[in-house]
Each structure stands twice: as structure tokens, then as C-alpha cells.
């Protein structure tokens, strides 16, 4: 794993994204190595969503470059970009579930539509079921998204993101708008996925608890529970803070908690109190 650990799954170099008159990202440099967990925090409108979508190639940067698994995304043809995207999974902030389709069709969608995903027709249903079992929603196959609660929809989103077994998973504010209990369930699923498949994880959130959980807890397959790790170094979790499109902090949990910066320290306060 150590040789794999050095490889870079995602790299942003001097990435700038502008909309009409707002600068959503300004000269962002970021590197996510394989097997690593990156937690991006920032206030509303700081550019977390734009950053994840740029990483996925859904938004083209106005300046700078995006490298996916060592390839320059800006230079790729559409087919090639789609192939790389099939190696990534994303949970969208607004869910992005197709509301004209059932849960089963939603989760099957990447298996059926991503050309580079090889999945025999008779394999589709078992894999969909497996992914839904993982998020403990095995009984909802026939339902449509509007029949599920917000937390359940988020879990279906996770199932759809992991069904192709991607190497890199992007989670956009997975706990936004959820009660603390449901939020913990969601975070536990994310930790579980990371533990079982060693997926590289990029998490955008405005809750420090989410990052804290990924940095200090691991999923124990035997008990099915999260358990605290004495020193979180084994979990390879890094924190990044975005402020109005600029990365203003990058470092470990310790460095984050010791930061004297007024904006940065706001993100750790929630837990200290």
C-alpha cells in the first residue's frame, strides 16, 4: 500500500473559476493522494461545491489545470474524461437523484450508462441490491425519491456513488440540513466505505464534527460500529479551509485546532465548547 500511497488521485494547480462577476475559486492548489482523506471546510458560498465539480470535470476552470489520476483533464477528449469519471463517485449536495426514476433505476444508472464500467446485465440487480444493503435501504428498490425522507435520499445518493466501486469518492456536504442523529448515520457510512474499500475520500462540509469523525474514528467490521482510534495519524486525514474561493489553510487536525487565524478557528469552535 505504501507505493500506492504515493500516487496522486487528484491534483488542482492554480485553478481559478469565475462566474459572471463572482470568483468562485481563486488560484487553488490541492493534491489528494491515493488512500488519503481530505476534508474541505468553508462557509456557505466559499466554493466547496464548485471545487468538487471542477475536480470531476463538470466545470472547466478558467485558469489552471486539473489532473485526474495523473492525466490532465483539460487535454482529454470527452470519451477519455468519461472513463476517468467512471473511476470516481460523487454524492451531490442537492442529491441529484433522478426523480422520474425508481431507486433501483437510480442506483443502476451508472452501471448501465458509464461505458467503461463493465457490468453484465444479470450482474446489475445484485450490485444495485448490494449497494443499497450497504446503506441499509435494501427494501426501497421500487420506491421513487420523493417517497423517501431527506436522510434516506442522501443514503441512496451514497449507494449510487459507490455502486461502481470508484477509487475516489467526492462527498458534497453530506450532512447539510440533517438532524444530528441522521448526520452521524451518514458519516458512519462514509467511514465504513473508506474502511472497507480503502477509497480515497474528498469531503466538503461546514461541520467540523464530520471531519473530526473521519480523522479519529474507524469502522470496525466485527462490531459494525465506529470506534475511536487513539492517535488519528493512521487515518491519513487532512483538513483544508476555503474562504471566498481561496484555500486559506491546509494541515492536520492538530494544526487546525492550534490555528490562531480568526476565520480558520471558527471551524473548530463548534466542537471545543
Amino acid at each position, binding site marked *: 500500500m505504501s507505493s500506492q500511497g504515493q500516487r496522486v488521485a487528484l491534483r488542482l494547480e492554480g485553478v481559478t473559476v469565475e462566474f459572471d462577476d463572482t470568483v468562485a475559486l481563486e488560484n487553488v492548489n490541492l493534491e489528494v493522494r491515493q488512500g488519503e482523506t481530505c476534508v474541505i471546510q468553508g462557509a456557505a458560498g466559499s466554493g466547496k461545491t464548485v471545487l468538487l465539480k471542477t475536480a470531476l470535470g463538470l466545470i472547466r476552470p478558467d485558469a489552471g489545470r486539473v489532473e485526474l489520476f495523473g492525466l490532465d483533464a483539460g487535454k482529454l477528449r470527452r470519451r477519455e474524461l468519461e472513463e476517468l469519471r467512471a473511476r470516481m463517485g*460523487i454524492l451531490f449536495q442537492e442529491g441529484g437523484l433522478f*426523480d422520474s426514476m425508481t431507486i433501483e433505476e437510480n442506483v443502476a444508472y451508472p452501471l448501465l450508462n458509464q461505458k467503461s464500467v463493465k457490468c453484465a446485465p444479470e450482474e446489475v440487480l445484485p450490485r444495485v441490491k448490494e449497494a443499497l444493503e450497504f446503506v441499509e435501504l435494501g427494501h426501497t428498490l421500487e420506491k421513487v425519491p420523493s417517497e423517501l425522507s431527506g436522510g434516506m435520499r442522501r443514503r441512496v445518493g451514497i449507494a449510487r456513488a459507490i455502486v461502481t466501486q470508484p477509487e475516489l469518492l467526492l462527498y458534497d456536504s453530506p450532512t447539510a440540513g440533517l438532524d444530528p442523529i441522521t448526520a452521524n448515520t451518514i458519516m458512519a457510512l462514509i467511514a465504513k466505505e473508506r474502511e472497507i474499500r480503502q477509497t480515497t475520500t474528498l469531503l466538503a462540509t461546514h461541520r467540523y464534527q464530520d471531519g473530526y469523525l473521519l480523522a479519529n474514528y474507524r469502522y470496525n467490521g466485527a462490531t459494525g460500529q465506529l470506534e475511536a482510534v487513539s492517535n488519528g495519524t493512521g487515518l491519513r486525514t487532512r483538513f483544508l479551509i476555503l474562504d471566498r474561493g481561496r484555500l486559506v489553510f491546509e494541515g492536520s487536525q492538530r494544526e487546525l485546532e492550534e490555528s490562531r487565524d480568526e476565520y480558520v478557528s471558527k471551524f473548530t469552535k463548534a466542537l471545543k465548547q
Partner: protein
Amino acid sequence: MLDFLKGPILNVQNFFLLSGRAIVNIFRSPHYADDIALQMDIIGVGSLPLILLTGLFTGGVITLQMSRALNQYGASGQVGNIVAITLVRELGPVLTALLVAGRNASGMASELGSMKVTEQIDAMRALGTDPAKKLVTPRLIATATMLPVLTVISDFMGLVGGYIVGCVMLSLTTPTQFWSSAYQALDYSDIAQGLIKPLTFAFVIALVGCHYGMETTGGTQGVGRATTRAVVVSSVWVIVLTFFIGNFFVNLN
């Protein structure tokens, strides 16, 4: 200096990019047959009652208004002629297109707009489908096939309306004379005009509706804005284009 032009120019550019992709995709597989069928049902079957009713009353009202003028010249026998020409050349295509614009351009903009703000469009791209192909092309094909059909139906209902008012209510002329003068009034260029127009309008309605849907930003409020714009812009273009197409055919003769 010309910053205020940047928005509109970008908008037009995006419109043509999307249109180009949607049109090219008509000739490329995969074709989403289910989506095409569904859209045909929504646009064609869904608009049918509306088209039947408005067509009927439009023909009736034209006859009603024309009857006085025709009587003055002692030409009331020509009522079938007048109704046929105004309907098939002009009012049939335009009214049908305006109704479908109000009903379906708005529907497309709001549906695609909600998909945009709930990130379903992003999800589609992330999961390996081209939204232009999956969403826009089926709507374009469905509108381009259904609008001419609806126009023909509307034209026919207009003639029926004209017949009811002209022959049954006002007894301006005999049924035989009504139908034969209507039939004789039309030549091939009228039929051509009556079909080229709906085809053109179909492209305008579908592409404008989808374009504003796909460009939606700003949550549910943005969906409302996109819907309004789609209806306004497509309706205006229908009226402007009908003039130019009409002009072209007048010069042709």
C-alpha cells in the same frame, strides 16, 4: 467597455452550442426511444383538447368578422376561401405554436430547470450521459413531429368552425360551396408554408425551452424566471419568424 453585451452574447452562444449538439444527436445513437415517445405523448396528445377547442373557435370568429365585410361586397360565397387562406397560411401555425409554446416551452424550461437546480443534470453528466442527447434531442424530435400534426388538426377544426358559423348559423353559403371554395383557395405553396412554419416553430419552442431550463441558476426562484423567459422568448420568435417566412413565400410567388 462592452461589458453589458457579454451576458447576452454568451447566452446566444450557449443557445447555439446546445442547439448544435441537440441537432447533431438526432442522427447519432443511442436514441432514447422511451423519452421520445413520452415527450410525444406530453406534447401531442396533451395539447390536443386545447388545439381542438381553439381551432374551432378561431375559424368561427374569423367567419363571424368576415361575414359583414363579405356581405358588403356581395361576396359572402367566398367565406370558405377566406377562412382557408387565413387559417392555413397564418393563424393555424401561429396560434398552435403560441399555445404549444405556452404549454410546452414552459414545461420544458421548468422541468429541466428543476433538474438543473437539484443537480440532476450534473449527475447525468457525471454518470456518463450527455444531457443534450438524453433530454434535449427527444424533446426536439417530439416537438418537430407533433407540432405540424397539431397544426393540421387546428387548421381542419378552424374550417369546421367556419362551416358551423358560415353555413349553419349565418347561412352565408351552401355547404358544398363552402368546402369547395376552401379547397380551391389553397395551392401547394400554401400547404408548404403551412408545414414549414410549424417545423421551424418546433425547433424554436423546443430549443428555447430547453436552453432556458439548462441555464437555470438560483434555486426554485430561478426555475420560475427560466419558465417565464422561455415562454416570452419563444413566443416572440414565433411571431417574428412567421413574418419572415410569410415574406419569403410572398416574394416567391
